[in-house]
Each structure stands twice: as C-alpha cells, then as structure tokens.
C-alpha cells in the first residue's frame, strides 16, 4: 500500500522530531552500523585495529568532521553552505602565503580566518538580507573563494619551510598518545552539540529552520541568525584549513575540494533533515566516521581502484537505507 507508506514517510518526517527519541535512535542505529562495518573489517584485515591505522584514519577525518559540524547547523537553520570546502582552501592558502611573505604565523592565521569569515559574512548578507537562495549564493561563493585561492597561488602549492614547531604541533603533535587534532575535533563536537541543545542563539537556529514566518512573528531577528549561521560554517571551515596547513606544512589551492558534499552527506547520514528544524551534531560526526571507515576498508582490503568509488557509494546507500528502515520500524510499531 504505497499510499500509506507515503503517508508514513510524511508522518515520519513530522514525528521523527520527537527529539530525545530521534536523538537516541539516530545515534544507536548509526553506531550499530559503524560497529558492524568495523568488526567485519577487523575480521578480514588484521591491520584495521592497529594503532597506526586507527590514528591515521582518525587524523584524516578531522577536517571533514569540523566542516560537517558547521554544515549541520546550517542545515538545521533550513539553509546550506556549498562554499565551506573553498573557504577551507582559501584560509590555508592565505595563511601560507602571508607566512611566506614574512608575517608571523599566528598573525597570518588570524588574517586567514578573517578572510574566511568575510566569505561567511557575504553569504549571510545575500541569504539573510537580500533574500537570495542559499544554494545559488553559496555556490557562487564556492567559486569565488576557490578563485581567490588560485589568484593567490597562481595554481602552485605554497610550502611552509621553517614554520615554528608549536604551529606544526597543531597538526602533527599528540597529547597522551592521542593526536592533538582528534582531541580538537572531539572538543568542537561536544561544545557545539551542547550549545545546539542548550544555548539561546542556537535555539533560534531551530526556530527559523522549522518555520521562518513563525520565527519572525515571535520577534526573532532572522537576518541576524542567518548571518550567524554562515559565519559559524565559515569559521569552522577556516579552522579546518589552518589545521590542514599545520598538518601538511603546505597549502594548495585545491585543498578542501568536494568537502562540502562529504559534509552534507555526513550530516544527512547523521539524521539531519534538509528541510531544516532537525539535526544532530553528534550524528553528523558519526556520519563522517562511517565514511572514513568505509574508505579505510577499501584500502586495507586492497579493493581495485577502479572499484573503490562504486563500492564506497554502494555501501553508503545500503547504510542509509538500513538506518532509514530501522527508524521506520521503530516508528510504525
């Protein structure tokens, strides 16, 4: 009876917002999927559970994780931001170039972050104030920021020789055996997740995502909230860029390409609705983790490069479907 399943679908879209509950579900079902994939991996490859493998996996997903967190906030507000990947690239290129131009690295980074925030401000202005559609606005910004990165570098990578160790530490150091940037990601996750649930400005993000008109008629300054949202996504993207710079000691204009798609995918896997008003930071990070585990598996099981893309996305589709159906079940009973 597809008509019912359709109504259910709609029903779910509505009722899957029983927060605590949905929250619970999401996490559990997603965690279970990740555990399943991981355990089967550890069976097929003895190397999966080795320290070096896990830490390299963890390090590799930090940038995506941080960006996905910002993206989730944007999605909850009913918008989305395609420019994060480019902003990440821009930030790392700007910081790199300025450092080579003789600036102190921290000054360079500050300026880079300001550059990133400017992009966010422009996004916020055109979406929140002018009222342009967020897709087209951030798509344009995606091109503009990337373009600036190319102009800065003329296409060639900027390598940081003789950058202070403390800076490289951000990207390469570790605390008590755990890579610093992983701790950073955990920190950001916890903070933003908490703020989303408990803080006043972030509560407004849910309101405008849920019903913009009602938000306006509740005296919420929608423009300001949207500005804030795009500033946040830009800030996190810039930080990701700086981290990449500190990690690789080099900034290339291509840094962060496709990051926006991975971020949105992760957020959606994590149970964030593209319709706005609903979303889980923790879920998004788990989404990033799932994608990372899958990629890792392809390498460890040395899947032919020509098959990798196919396999990755097949698994993605399966995972999302399982997740989705598991929710339907828990709903309809």
């Amino acid at each position, binding site marked *: 009876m597809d008509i019912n399943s359709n109504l259910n679908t709609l029903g779910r879209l509505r009722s899957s917002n029983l927060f605590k509950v949905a929250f619970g579900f999401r996490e559990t079902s997603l965690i279970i999927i990740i555990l399943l994939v991981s355990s089967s991996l550890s069976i097929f490859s003895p190397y999966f559970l080795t320290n070096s493998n896990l830490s390299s996996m963890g390090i590799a997903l930090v940038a995506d994780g941080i960006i996905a967190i910002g993206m989730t906030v944007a999605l909850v507000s009913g918008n989305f931001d395609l420019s994060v990947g480019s902003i990440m690239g821009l930030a790392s290129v700007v910081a790199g170039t300025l450092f080579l131009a003789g600036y102190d690295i921290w000054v360079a980074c500050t300026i880079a972050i300001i550059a990133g925030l400017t992009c966010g401000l422009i996004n916020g202005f055109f979406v929140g104030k002018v009222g342009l559609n967020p897709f087209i606005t951030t798509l344009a910004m995606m091109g503009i920021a990337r373009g600036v990165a190319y102009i800065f570098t003329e296409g060639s990578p900027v390598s940081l020789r003789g950058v202070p160790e403390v800076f490289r530490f951000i990207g390469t150091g570790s605390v008590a055996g755990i890579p610093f940037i992983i701790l950073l990601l955990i920190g950001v996750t916890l903070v933003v997740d908490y703020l989303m649930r408990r803080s006043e400005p972030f509560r407004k993000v849910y309101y405008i995502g849920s019903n913009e008109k009602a938000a306006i008629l509740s005296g919420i300054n929608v423009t300001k909230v949207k500005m804030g949202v795009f500033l946040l996504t830009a800030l996190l993207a810039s930080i990701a860029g700086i981290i990449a710079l500190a990690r690789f000691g080099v900034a290339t204009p291509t840094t962060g390409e496709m990051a926006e798609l991975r971020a949105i995918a992760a957020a959606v896997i994590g149970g964030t609705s593209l319709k706005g008003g609903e979303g889980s930071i923790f879920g998004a990070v788990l989404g990033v983790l799932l994608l990372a585990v899958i990629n*890792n598996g392809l390498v460890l099981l040395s899947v032919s490069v020509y098959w990798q893309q196919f396999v990755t996305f097949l698994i993605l589709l399966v995972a999302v479907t399982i997740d989705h159906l598991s929710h339907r079940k828990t709903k309809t009973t």
Partner: protein
Amino acid sequence: SSDASVAKQPESASETTVSEAPFEGSKDEVYYVISFLSGLDYWKSVFDGFQKAGDQFGVETKYTGDPGYDINQSVAVFEQVAATKPAGIAVAAINADALEGPINRAREQGIEVVTYDSDSPESDRSSFLSTGNAAAGEIAATHMAELMDEEGEIALLYTIGQQNVEERITGFVTAIEKQYPNMKVVVRANDSGDQTEGARALAAELQANPNIKGVFAANGVAGLGAATAVREAGKRDQIKIIGFDTDSALLDMVSEGEVDATIAQGTENMGYWSMAFLYHLKHDLAPESLPGFVDTGVNIVTKENVEEFYVE
C-alpha cells in the same frame, strides 16, 4: 629533482651480493604502488611494469591510491597502506611536503620507499624514478618547434592546480622562451580534468586568438578536448596539436592524424624499476647506494611510430 647523479637502467645491480637464490622472494612479501587520481589510465602501465618485476621476483604486488586529487585522502591512503607493514612502497607524491612526514615515518618502520613520477625530494625516499615532468615538457616544446617551423603563437590546455601537470607546462614554457624567440605562448586554458570543459575553454580561446598555430595539451583529456575544439573551429590544417600520455584514445587520434604527436613517458619503466629498486633495497642486493634519480625515458609518439605504443 634535487639529485644530480643520473644513471641509466642499472642491470649491473643484479650481480652483487651472495645469498642463495637472492631473486626468489616470497608471496607474503607485499609491495605497493600508490598514486593519486588513481582511476587515470596514465598509471595503468606503471602498475603493469611494477607487476612484471614483481612476478619475476615472485613477490605480491598491489596498486591503490586516492581516486580523487585530495592531499588529505592521499596521505591517509599512504599511511593506511604503511600500517599494513608492506615490504616496500612506490608512491607518486601528490605533494612533496605533504608526503615528507608519512614517507619518513614509513622508513622508520623499515618499509622501503621510492617515489616515481612526482617526487618528495626532502623525504628519506631511497630513489626517484621519473621522466621528470619538466623534462617531458621541454621535449614537447622542441617537437612543437619542429612542427611550427619555430614560429607562431601557442595555446596551452591543462588542468590548473594539478602539480605534475603544472611542472610539464613550466618545462614547456621555459624551453620556448629560452630557445625559440619567434614562438610565443599566448594562451593558458583550463580543462578542469574533463574533455568537455577542455573543448569549451580552448574553442573560445581559438576564437579570441585567430593566430594560434600550435596547441600543447599537457594531459590525457586535454588532448581529446583540444582535437575536438580545433576540428570544430575548422582549423585542423592550420593548428598543430601535441598531446600528452598514451591512452588508446589519444593514440587513435595520432594515427588518424587528429593529433600530430603525443608524449610517452616511460611509465612502464617507472613501475618496473621502482619494483626492482624496492626489492634490491629490501634484500640489500644493491651496491652501496642506488642512484637517487632514474630517468625512465620519454618518447615522442607520431603517426610513424604510433603502432609500437598500443598495449595489449
């Protein structure tokens, strides 16, 4: 490349050292060859060569890499391969600095590492086997000069921001500037890694610069796009085209005269000698030191010799 000592293929190496059956490795000895944009046809013959050598030594060979062009992902792949403790890794460094750390860490774990195609000179890699993209660009320039009688305007079509390709371009441009005063690069067009985009960009350039007499398409798809753009502009007879790489499609175009020539890098050599080097390093078969740089050779493919380059 940093290292000056250029050696030709060092068969001599095989005579050294005395252990019984030094050239019989075991199947549980695994060697990896890693690339970026790993789906590209370009790497296939690298792996073919790598495999050939691997089979001769009786060891296991594997090919992997980041399907995209993403430093983060490439490094992750390298580190995750290293985590499986293989005997050796031959890697095309997507970026010299980014791979420096990972390569050094792999070496510390006793994994032999050589670079091919794209180097990471500051790293502890034992050797770099490549045509030298810059060199290949120079050779393309010389041949272009022949085709154009050393005069006229030239357009470049390539994927901007992709480092090994940018190096070819640099090589090409410097050679033109140095040696051929009457030739001039007037256009740089971006193919964004897709023949459709390449054709779009070059087509417009040909409109804007009616005097273009030569096109250097510095990577595979660029060649395909360039041929179409020139044909659609109806200027095939006025414009010379030199492509890069030897995928069957480009070879077809050479033999059908849609493209005048293409550059064949010694990709199979890169693979073969990378494997050979890694094996020698692993088994201490080499004399004191292996050459830090090996020029794997480069050829110009034209209608005359094209048939030799088709791989079965």
